[in-house]
């Protein structure tokens, strides 16, 4: 659409010139135009069969308990629900989230992921998200002790109760929260596993947090 408008404007400019001219003049115009870039993105929790904490022999290793997914975890939706976890032990949640990006930006994009808040309980007390919940690219070889990167609590403003509707940023999210970069356009996907390392001093409670993914074109 923009291309057609630009071409029409050029044609009009050239066609109109003789009417105003004292002598016939011809010319040519070279137009460089930009196509408006777009970035579309979606995130799918529990995006593949076999998702969750079940079946990973290193989950809670040493705790003497058998991990199981929480009831709110369902394929292609729901929550990333680790179920019951024993403090002081590590857990891996496979296929936690898949980020799908569709963009025409030839320079690609950057994906950020941050916690809208710290971990919060039903009674509104909190516990640090940093160094408790981690992410790593999905891979069949991941274990509860694979190297991972901690999620950060955002410096932006959560939207809705506890950030249920996302985060508002004054600028871009922190560069420390980059989880994926791409230098190409197209429809691309990246899956992520989550790791949970609840400190032995954490309170005994239910904890929740919203992880917000933000995709920005380069």
């Amino acid at each position, binding site marked *: 659409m923009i291309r057609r408008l630009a071409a029409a404007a050029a044609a009009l400019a050239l066609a109109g010139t003789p009417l105003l001219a004292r002598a016939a003049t011809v010319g040519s115009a070279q137009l460089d135009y930009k196509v408006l870039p777009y970035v579309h993105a979606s995130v799918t929790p529990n995006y593949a069969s076999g998702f969750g904490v079940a079946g990973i022999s290193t989950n809670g290793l040493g705790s003497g308990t058998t991990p199981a997914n929480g009831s709110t975890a369902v394929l292609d939706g729901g929550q990333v629900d680790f179920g019951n976890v024993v403090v002081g032990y590590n857990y891996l949640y496979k296929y936690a989230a898949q980020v799908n990006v569709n963009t025409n930006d030839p320079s690609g994009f950057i994906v950020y992921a941050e916690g809208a808040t710290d971990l919060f309980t039903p009674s509104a007390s909190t516990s640090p998200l940093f160094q408790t919940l981690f992410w790593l690219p999905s891979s069949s070889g991941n274990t509860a002790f694979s190297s991972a990167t901690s999620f950060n609590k955002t410096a932006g403003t959560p939207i809705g109760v506890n950030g249920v509707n996302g985060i508002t940023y004054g600028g871009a999210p922190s560069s420390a929260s980059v989880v994926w970069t791409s230098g190409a356009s197209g429809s691309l996907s990246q899956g992520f596993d989550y790791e949970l390392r609840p400190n032995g001093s954490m309170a005994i409670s239910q904890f929740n*947090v919203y992880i917000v993914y933000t995709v920005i074109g380069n």
Partner: protein
Amino acid sequence: MRHTRNLALLALVVLAALAAFSQADAVQATKTSKIVEFEFVITPSPAPSVGALPAPQVKAAAAIAAAPRTDASTRTLLVDPFAGPRQVAWGGPSWDVAPGIQIAQVQAQPSPVPVQFVTKADPNAQYLQVTPGSAGTILTAVYGTNYYACALTIKTYYTTAYGLTDWGYGTSTSSAIGYPIENYPTTSYLAWAAEASPEPVPEPTPATFTGFYNEGSPGQTVWSKAANVTYTGCIDLRLTVPTAVAPGTYSAVIEYNLQVTI
């Protein structure tokens, strides 16, 4: 008579064997274990400062902003737009977005991913507690030698004589664990020293560190205590970063085991 004597001898042999093996069995059993994971973030040395010179793209943007708007050809064009040779209209790069100037970037923010878990108490907390120090388990490192005072606080207790052992998780004499704990026979680049907790402030650097055991079980003894003794110790860490290691994040996973007498 001879038959009776043989039976008595056989009984003695069996008793001796039982005594010997039952003593061996009584030595140790693993009561509980804890696995701790550190992420060491190795950063390169900072680049030397060159003062407050503006970045090239900033200078380019400034030059464009200061460029004269009406040169001679422009003035001629204003007086007589159709004079002179035939011209080709062309908007060159100067009409593009100047380098260093940001335009609004497109972005998208899908619905957040809700995460939930329910914590449960550690049933073995009365016997073995491993608590990261105030810096947590994500530690920064530079090239050379790095010390981390009281990176872990470990509390142990049991009703019989016990010992605390450690080794690099996943190590053995045949696997391929990489930096920093490596794998036998390579010496671990991560070493530890145990001290009583709390440590004095400022805490002196221990004179002796021991590289983490990287041959798997049975590992090495961190400390041994008598029955019913509650002991809390600090684990100092020392990480050596050779220049051959690229900047990045490296995991070190350590397994602690409480070996108790049964």
